[in-house]
């Protein structure tokens, strides 16, 4: 009997510049090397049935990427983690996995919030704090967004759920930011840079978590450790 496994994986500094498409190819190749009982799609060119959440921008790290993998034979999630980790390329690591109940909505349709860590060399928590307070007093923060169809105006403020943490670290500051992700609304890294006034090329951006947000409830797609959170 087949089953579906949802797993969480990290993307480390070695593979920061691996794009989403490249990542998907690398994951598929690892499945083949591992010899896992992967269910293939029908059709002329059968492909492993694996689907991901919203793409991580090139250059960002992550501790919380997710994928749903259809297996042709059931497999213990713990075994899956062990076998797969022996074959995925350096820089990626499977952190947890669970069997998915039939009918669970896809990652893409469910995830709508992400927690980001921004490591900002040369910046101070004080100036960031001031900037954030000032932004909170504004009605809107409109920027021009380039899309495939051209450019349009986007107000960034509704896309930010809040700052979780601002801290000085050696050489700069660190910020944790909860923001919208996905089809309904998505805050891009370059827009975070505009909003908080940092240099994107110098910043190290890490996706720490992804959530299904309903009101002030944040539920990760895997595990039961949801929480409620509203910014003061």
């Amino acid at each position: 009997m087949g089953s579906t496994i949802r797993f969480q994986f990290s993307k480390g500094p070695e593979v920061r510049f691996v794009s989403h498409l490249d990542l998907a190819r690398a994951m598929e190749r690892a499945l083949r090397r591992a010899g896992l009982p992967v269910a293939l799609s029908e059709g002329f060119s059968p492909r492993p049935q694996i689907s991901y959440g919203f793409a991580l921008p090139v250059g960002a790290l992550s501790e919380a990427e997710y994928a749903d993998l259809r297996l042709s034979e059931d497999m213990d999630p713990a075994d899956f983690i062990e076998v797969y980790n022996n074959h995925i390329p350096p820089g990626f690591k499977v952190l947890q996995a669970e069997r998915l109940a039939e009918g669970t909505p896809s990652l893409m349709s469910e995830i709508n919030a992400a927690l980001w860590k921004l490591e900002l060399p040369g910046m101070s928590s004080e100036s960031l704090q001031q900037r954030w307070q000032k932004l909170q007093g504004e009605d809107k923060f409109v920027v021009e967004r380039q899309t495939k169809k051209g450019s349009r105006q986007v107000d960034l403020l509704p896309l930010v759920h809040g700052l979780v943490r601002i801290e000085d670290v050696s050489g700069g500051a660190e910020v944790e930011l909860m923001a919208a992700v996905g089809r309904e609304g998505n805050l891009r890294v370059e827009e975070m840079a505009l909003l908080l006034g940092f240099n994107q090329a110098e910043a190290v951006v890490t996706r720490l978590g992804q959530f299904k947000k309903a009101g002030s409830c944040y539920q990760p797609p895997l595990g039961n450790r949801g929480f409620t959170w509203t910014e003061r």
Partner: protein
Amino acid sequence: MDKRLLPLLPLVTKPARYTNHELNAQHKEWSPDRVKMALAFPDIYDVGMGHLGFKILYAIVNGRSDALAERVYAPWVDMQQLMEERAIPLSSLESGSDLASFDLVGFTLQHELSYTNILKMLDLAGIPRRSSQRGESDPLVLAGGPCAFNVEPLADFFDFVVLGEGEEVIHEILDMVKTLKQQRAGRQEMLRELAKLKGVYVPSFYRPVYEDGKFQGLEPLYPGIPAQIEKRVAPDLGALPFPEDFVVPYAEVVHDRVMVEILRGCTRGCRFCQAGMIYRPVRERDPEQIKAQVEKLVQSTGYDEISLSSLSSGDYSQIRSLVADLIEAYQGCGVTVALPSLRLDSFAVELAQEIQKARKTGLTFAPEAGTQRLRDVINKNVTDQDLKEVVQGAFQAGWHRIKLYFMIGLPTETEADLDGIADLARSVLEWGRESRTSRKRPEVTVSVASFVPKPHTPFQWMGQDPLEVLTAKQEYLQKRLRRPGVQFSFHQVEQSFLEAVFARGDRRLAAVLERAVDLGCQFDSWGEQLHFDRWLQAFQEVGLDPRDYAQRWLDPEAPLPWSHLSPGVDDEFLRREWQLAQEAVPTPDCRWDRCSRCGVCFKLPVVNRLVEVAGRG
């Protein structure tokens, strides 16, 4: 990788080109006792990663405990600019070491339009361009690959050059460099020793002689230096090492799949084809060994495609059973089989059917010329009847799109031959309408390249058509091919012209290359990067007419700038073939017919070596 590049990665296109940590990459320690070799590919990562020759050498060098090999590619223009602004020298992927810090920097010469990239890479690395300018602390810069058989335009830039197959001579080079390094030998001494190896050419030990601007020959400067350098060639492919794993890139690259070389060499004898002359004779690999290699590579890479590569894979004696066995073994896990370079025969359609059971995208064939007469001239032994059967067979089998490759500017070509191309395209559509089984309308794509005379071929003496003539022929064809269902594409004539200049070039072109690079020429094979005006300026400033190289008809009895670089094929054979070409008389394939006396098996310790034939066709 080079840490200095890290802050630049967010600023360039496709940053994954410059990062390492790919699966199966070898990160060996830079201990002092190891000989360090850079495998330098004169194009970007996306192109260079598809090169099988470097995969083989990478495995061989890294398989030795006393040596290491790392990869270096040309950075794309955006990255180059940033590196130059910040004075960051070119470095290797694995350890990020400066190219200048290796003992050996080996370039592969795959085609003439990559020559400017070699100089640009040396510039970026801070290695002096000319061999004569390099000092004791600089690496030895070497080259190999097909264009080594006329390396003369680059002779001043390489310390030494390897002719022919690298699998064996690389060990001899590493052994020698290791010993000489331990003895603290100087560059000149090292080169003197290396010149003693079979297949190794040290250009600086020779002097070209000209009389009234006409090439007279190349003189060895020292006693004991061979007047002619013969290629390295192994009698048995099966005895040569083949990698058990490939570096698996993250970024999208060409030929990103398992590749196994099923045979080397081709004796079909197409008279325009340099590969067919310089890789002789034919040596087939045992099918059991091929299957074992495929299995190891699929396991170690996880690729979903297996390519059986060679100059003409349909010619492999046991191709049918091999393909059938591989399909049976791998189709269950979603791994497909690909056969590049299929010849135009009905057998090819059967094979293609075998491997593209369901997805019938398009079939590509290369008749090369539009009439039977011209195909006889070039010894492309394909008849009109073959063509008809193949095309009908393909449409019957469900394909609806056929791509045909042709060349214009071939020797003895007339307007009738161009008309032949147009007629053939029209016939293909007709045959398609008659025999198609697909619901889709028949389509034919005609792709036309300009003929480039190549050294060591029967056509080496012939001048290329002038640019205006090639352009006029393209326009003529374009007009004649304007009809529904036909698509027409052609190569840039300026590229073919430069290719011809450097293919038949001599040492005087070194100055032109340097000037062209100074003027910003590089990536000439990337259409939009070619600056032909700058090239013409470079030729003018140096005082050479490029047409003298590309378009001049050479005297078949006179010495040629590449006469000393021997692939084993006799001049006498080439002259005979040139004569037969004028008479439109074909020469059969010596694999299955009489010996064509090309000279390779007399001069070198090799013969055609086929695996047991299992009832072909």
